[in-house]
């Protein structure tokens, strides 16, 4: 059971870990009008490194675990199906809540809903760094984080975007607003699977599996680069995210009178989706004991609770152009992402550790 001291440590580590401090530096840099900037090409490079590292690590861990416990395959398949359900459910519920409770226009509500349903690579990367550190701390004897969870990314991301876009377009057509953009689910699915983030992550996972199985020594040497540098790269990546968040803070005023409710939605909803994800993985843990650790449920929470702010805005701008980007972008970047990494993640971590008694 967690003691109060341990809970305080989790909260403080979350707030004052190097990645989080770099995130704060990004926001402060914008406020003091510093010319500190991460060039666009470097941003892509940092994201590539993180995604490849997460994929390689996940793939190699998955192979080792699958060889040891073949039943893990059933767990992965059920978790993938649960991810699809979460993606559709989160988009559907968020859209309705934003429209009815937060009072957003139909187009804005469904465009924002897709962001909440879709997966945030940045949130996931922070989650993986915390879970992997916890696994390192206890050694390989006890399972905390199996590594393969990020493979569920596309199973939640694409269904979430497609359902938000389809429901949004149907709702707009009913209101007589339409003809704006053609919706082609095939194209959205193609972008969802072969878009940079998912494609690189899944491909690295497969590379990790093959390499770990056939040339484990080479794999170990490769991971010297991808493993040890992960946290440092994450710091620079979060600096960039902080700069982006800082630049969007000013845009929050577009929300006007709705800001109070939007604020609540941006904070509370992802926590609910994270908890829903944790409970699902906990149920799976009870059905297949010994195959899932608390870190797995925690990382799943970062996939479910994360709010996409790089790929989803582009998908939504193209598919629901009637929506105002000045509403969904600041909500995702300047409200939900900081909330999630500063407050949501420690809460999810505490919940997972209490459930697993770790």
């Amino acid at each position, binding site marked *: 059971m967690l003691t109060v001291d341990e809970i305080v440590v989790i909260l403080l580590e979350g707030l004052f870990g190097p990645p989080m401090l770099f995130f704060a530096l990004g926001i402060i840099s914008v406020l003091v009008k510093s010319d500190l900037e991460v060039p*666009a090409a470097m*941003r892509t490079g940092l994201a590539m490194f993180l995604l490849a590292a997460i994929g390689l690590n996940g793939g190699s861990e998955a192979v080792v675990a699958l060889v040891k416990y073949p039943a893990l395959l059933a767990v992965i398949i059920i978790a993938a199906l649960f991810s699809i359900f979460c993606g559709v459910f989160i988009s559907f519920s968020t859209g309705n809540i934003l429209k009815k409770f937060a009072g957003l226009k139909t187009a804005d509500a469904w465009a924002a809903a897709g962001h909440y349903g879709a997966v945030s690579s940045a949130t996931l990367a922070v989650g993986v760094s915390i879970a992997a550190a916890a696994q390192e701390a206890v050694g390989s004897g006890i399972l905390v984080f199996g590594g393969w969870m990020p493979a569920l990314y596309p199973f939640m991301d694409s269904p979430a975007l497609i359902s938000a876009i389809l429901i949004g377009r149907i709702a707009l057509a009913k209101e007589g607003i339409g003809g*704006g953009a053609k919706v082609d689910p095939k194209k959205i699915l193609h972008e969802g699977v072969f878009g940079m983030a998912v494609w690189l992550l899944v491909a690295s996972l497969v590379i990790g599996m093959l390499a770990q199985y056939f040339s484990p020594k080479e794999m170990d040497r490769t991971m010297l680069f991808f493993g040890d540098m992960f946290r440092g790269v994450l710091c620079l990546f979060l600096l*960039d*995210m902080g700069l*982006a968040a800082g*630049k*969007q803070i*000013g*845009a929050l005023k577009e929300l006007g009178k709705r800001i109070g409710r939007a604020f609540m939605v941006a904070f509370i909803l992802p926590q609910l989706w994270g908890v829903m994800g944790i409970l699902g993985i906990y149920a799976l843990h009870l059905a297949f004991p010994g195959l899932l650790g608390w870190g797995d449920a925690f990382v799943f929470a970062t996939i479910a609770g994360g709010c996409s*702010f*790089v*790929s989803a*805005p*582009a998908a939504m*701008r*193209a598919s629901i*152009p*009637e929506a*105002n*980007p*000045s509403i969904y*972008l600041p909500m995702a*970047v300047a409200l939900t992402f900081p909330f999630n990494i500063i407050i949501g993640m420690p809460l999810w971590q505490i919940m997972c550790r209490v459930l697993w008694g770790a």
Partner: protein
Amino acid sequence: MKLREATKVVIITEALIEEQIISLLAELGVHAYTIFREIAGEGTRGIRSGDCLGKMCSNVCIEVVIDEEARAQAVIEAVYNKFLAKHYAGIAYLENVRAFHH
């Protein structure tokens, strides 16, 4: 060297719809164009001034040189009606130029 009068269509808009504009140009029989990427600016909508991640906030400039002015007019009208009149930020204009004739 032979130069002749031609019309240049300039379209500055959101990077996101670059592909859609190119395919509209192709439908209109235009297959030669130049694209400038990663350009910045601000318009009356104000939404193009913020920097954000990914392609969302970057702009492109597409230039097309067309011999007959009537065709250039048709192209700029099609682009305006399909994209700029409704939801996407941007501007399109015509310029008189002199180009080499093949």
